[in-house]
């Protein structure tokens, strides 16, 4: 350990910015090894790691601190679990003058492991399938296709889908004078890997549909520079932020496993656009007056932004068999541009004893200046076939004006009530609604009347009205496209929080949240959503050797939505009610999500100052209920009703249970050295009739026909993992 300290001292001395300093180092280091038993290679278990799923692993944590002089410091922290999962941060500076931060991080995101794929070239923008497979599938009949596909998939290669994130950042916070501060920083991230991606070959339906691996090779760079003057009379600041996103791949092309040659209905090679390079630039100015009477403050903030994206456009289609190929483009680049402007004026004051007021005005505009992109009739190709309908892009610009007034009054010692009213008026150019008006009212109460109790209550009521028209055949949108975010909405919300700690060894808290959104003008689409959350927890110490902390949270979310089935055989889809019943083209869905999360932490001091045991466990049990309702069509005729049957509700939807348990025994060998033994258990189960029941890479109908998509079965799988770990910690 002495040699380790010496080595660290030398390392720090090499980084010293002032010679002749004393580099006494303190800190702690922990090293450990772990053994995994069970599904340690499972992608969901390793979702945010980047290990290789092997049954053994090691980890280390290091914290260093050094004060080379009374007013200077150096810190370092390192956390590493595998070679591909680490977090290194270091900061140094002079107290009250400057601080320099440097950080490096690497971690991953795992999506799927060991999936079967016909494709070669994972991780690149060109995915290929042997011509022999394409040729075989192209000439296969509907009855032989499934078995041929299963045979090809069965002998296909395996792949993992995951990506790695590497981040580096550096920042400097500098105070050259007491009233002046400067902040500069830069952050860079590289994302590299693959993730699941659905891809089509043109014709509608799922029989020309595959799941591929989207190549990820992103670079994101963010910089910020700011300066702020804070004097006794006023403060002023300027700030600039720039974000640059670069994608090494503009598109991904992928062979069609079902076709070797182009056909009018489907291409032999598909090609999708990937996330384009883009840039966001923001510049802000702030001013505040601080020397106003009655503890008042007046501030003004302006933030102006420019977002641009100007990638080269791909051809509308690469299917040589479609009429009109190749298709000309009205322009060769995207030319997308959005300007934003946020201007805020805020006044706070205490005009009388115990009275606080706030007035706020905010003007927020988002102007999309992208020139409209139009493809003429006969050119538009979204399914690799030209169509008679022209299509033009639509962009929405908005201006929002918010005015808010809030007041709070201390009605008693450590007890205050507050009330606020706000109006938000928005205008839109493009989109469904041309204007919106929302009034928001809030009431709140907060009290710490007794030192051992805190109670907070808040109520909110919001009424939003828009001019979003209800259904007409001529409104130009797709029939019955009902955008709930543009529709009139009434919201009510209540929150109650209470904490009590009547004695030194007991603390309890309770929270209740209720909220409901109603869409009074929406005959279709989302019509209502409500949620409730109840949480309770307790911290109890039994003497000085036992602490128990149980907690429980229950959540309930309900939604109601209504849709109307569109059937091509009926000219006017606005079907009338029949025999006093709701039109048989309608159907209703009520969803209910429930979540139960009990948790418990127990701490035991087995031998005072020597041996401690801490156990933490939680269970999260989620479930979704789907309840459909639909009147059956006249005589059950499908011509009148797209689904002429009484719907059956699924048994399972997003029903999962996640169990996490960790128990750690810590033995203090001496004041600066401890040994630990730990056990961890994690289990995740899932049931979902839509996504898991019967899923295979080659789905078929009841009659054996291939129904698609041809997939890699990348859904997260259940897992069960036991982990035993030992570690040693040394403090120096």
């Amino acid at each position, binding site marked *: 350990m002495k040699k380790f300290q010496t080595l660290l001292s030398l390392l720090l001395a090499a980084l010293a910015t002032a010679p002749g300093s004393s580099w006494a180092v303190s800190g702690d280091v922990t090293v450990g090894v772990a053994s995994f038993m069970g599904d340690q290679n499972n992608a*969901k278990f390793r*979702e945010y790691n980047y290990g290789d799923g092997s049954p053994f692993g090691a980890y280390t944590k290091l914290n260093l601190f050094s004060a080379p002089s009374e007013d200077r410091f150096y810190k370092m922290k390192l956390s590493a679990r595998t070679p591909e999962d680490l977090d290194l941060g270091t900061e140094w500076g002079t*107290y*009250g003058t400057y601080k320099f931060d440097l950080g490096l*991080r690497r971690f991953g995101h795992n999506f799927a492991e060991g999936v079967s794929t016909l494709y070669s070239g994972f991780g690149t923008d060109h995915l290929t399938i042997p011509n022999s497979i394409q040729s075989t599938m192209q000439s296969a009949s509907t009855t032989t296709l499934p078995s041929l596909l299963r045979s090809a998939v069965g002998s296909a290669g395996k792949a993992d889908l995951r990506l790695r994130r590497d981040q580096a950042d550096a920042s400097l916070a500098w105070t050259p004078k007491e009233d002046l501060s400067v902040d500069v920083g830069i952050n860079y*991230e590289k994302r590299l890997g693959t993730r699941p991606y*659905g*891809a089509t070959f043109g014709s*509608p*339906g*799922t029989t020309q549909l595959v799941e591929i691996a989207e190549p990820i090779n992103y670079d994101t760079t963010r910089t910020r520079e700011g300066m702020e003057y804070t004097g006794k009379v006023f*403060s002023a600041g300027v700030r600039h932020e720039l*974000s640059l*996103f670069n*994608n090494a791949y503009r*598109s991904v092309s992928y062979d069609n496993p079902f076709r070797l040659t182009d056909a009018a209905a489907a291409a032999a090679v598909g090609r*999708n656009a990937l*996330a*384009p390079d883009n840039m*966001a630039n923001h510049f802000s100015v702030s001013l505040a007056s601080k020397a106003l009477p009655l503890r008042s403050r007046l501030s003004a903030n302006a*933030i102006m932004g420019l*977002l641009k*994206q100007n990638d080269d*456009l*791909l051809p509308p289609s690469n299917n040589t068999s479609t009429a009109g190929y190749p298709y000309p483009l009205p322009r060769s680049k*995207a030319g997308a541009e*959005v300007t934003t402007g946020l201007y805020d004026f*805020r006044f*706070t004051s205490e005009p009388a004893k115990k009275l*606080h007021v*706030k007035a706020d005005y905010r003007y927020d505009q988002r102007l999309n200046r992208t020139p409209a992109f139009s493809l003429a009739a006969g050119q538009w190709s979204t399914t690799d076939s030209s169509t008679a309908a022209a299509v033009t892009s639509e*962009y*929405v610009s908005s201006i929002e004006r918010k005015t808010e007034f809030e007041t709070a009054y201390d009605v008693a010692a450590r007890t205050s009530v507050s009330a606020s009213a706000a109006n938000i008026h928005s205008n839109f150019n493009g989109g469904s609604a041309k204007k919106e008006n929302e009034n928001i009212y809030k009431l709140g109460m907060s009290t*710490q009347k007794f030192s051992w109790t805190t109670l907070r209550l*808040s109520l909110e009521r919001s009424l939003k009205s828009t001019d979003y028209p209800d259904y007409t055949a001529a409104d130009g949108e*797709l*029939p*019955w*496209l009902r955008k709930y*975010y543009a529709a009139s909405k009434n919201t009510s919300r209540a929150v109650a929080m209470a904490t009590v700690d009547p004695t030194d060894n007991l603390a309890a808290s309770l*929270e209740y949240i209720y909220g409901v959104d109603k869409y009074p003008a929406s005959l279709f*689409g989302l019509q209502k959503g409500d949620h409730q959350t109840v*949480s309770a927890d307790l911290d109890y110490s039994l003497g000085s050797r036992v602490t128990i902390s149980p907690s429980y*949270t229950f959540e309930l979310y309900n939604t109601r*939505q209504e*849709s109307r*089935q569109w059937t091509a055989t009926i000219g006017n889809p606005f079907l009338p009610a029949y025999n006093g019943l709701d039109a048989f*083209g309608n159907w209703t869905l009520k*969803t209910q*999500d429930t979540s139960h999360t009990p948790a418990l932490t127990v701490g035991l001091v087995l031998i005072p100052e020597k041996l401690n045991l801490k156990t933490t466990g939680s269970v999260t049990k989620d*479930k979704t209920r789907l309840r*459909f309702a639909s009147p059956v069509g006249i005589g059950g005729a499908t011509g009148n009703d*797209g689904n002429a049957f009484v719907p059956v*509700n699924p048994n399972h939807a997003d029903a*999962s249970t996640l169990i996490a348990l960790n128990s750690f025994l810590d033995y203090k060998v001496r004041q600066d050295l401890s040994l630990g033994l730990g056990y961890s258990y994690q289990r995740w189960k899932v049931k979902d*009739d*839509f996504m898991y029941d019967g*899923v295979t890479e080659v789905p078929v109908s009841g009659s054996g026909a291939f*129904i698609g998509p041809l*997939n890699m079965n990348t859904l997260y799988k259940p897992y069960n993992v036991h982990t035993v770990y030992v570690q040693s910690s040394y403090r120096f």
Partner: protein
Amino acid sequence: MNEAEKRNIFSVSTLVFIGAALAAATSLRASTDTVKSESIGAEACLACHADKAGFKDNIHAKAWPRAKKISFSESCETCHGPGSLHAAAAGDKTNPGFRAILIPKEMPPEEASALCLKCHDKGNQTHWRGGVHETHGVSCLSCHTLHGGHDKVLAKAAAEEVCFQCHKDVQAQIKKSSHHPIPEGKMTCSDCHNPHGTLGDHLMVENTVNDTCFKCHAEKRGPFLWEHRPVAENCDNCHTPHGSSHGKLLVEKVPFLCQSCHSGSQHPGTLYALNPATPGANTYQRSGTRAIYKACLNCHSNIHGSNHPSGERFTR
């Protein structure tokens, strides 16, 4: 002594008593008014409060000499006020001078915060006044620790423990199967929120929800050739950032989430319940082919926006 003389004596005595009482009270008030508390220095404070000696290692004690020209000797009284009367009371709580000291944790929240705001009224704390935490009776001391060791909020690994003292619902949500990597230690609450107050809603670190999300998810920022309006307006239209039982942090299961807007246009309007006509078959075979596996996202992969000329339906 007759009645008139007795009344005179009583009146005079009363007047004398009242006068003496007034004189004594005035004298006492005068003595209190004129005896103001004065600074005594940190060494005197530590003579009784030795357990606070660790403040010497606090960042305030380290930074003040250079940043604010406040020496360590002046540090205690910078926040707690002059301590001579309090020290003179020598622990006697019945002595009125004992309370002649500022005890932030017993002060009303806004007054306690005002002590901190004397210096911390800039940068990330600029919009504290009038912010949602201040309005709901939260003070700096609700989250930050100056005495008695390590400030959890400033340690990334433990910061969310402080937030979860109140936000119990969020503590449960991050334990759901689809979540941001907060339990894994890759993120913390302050990566998205500035609890000190912001110009926008939900205490987001950037001015809007979307700008905050785009810090990490810049590939979704666009602007795109084909814009998906609910995406451009607010990521919360489809996602719930703290945790969800539905994949991809969605607020509702697909395809039903999509159908909450696409409520009748061609195949989006199809009723994707189970068909009873073929009992015994698996769900793939009993429901619409567009509800299975990843539902709408099987085809509409570029759901956040597309830059493909043929991407109007986000399939390209």
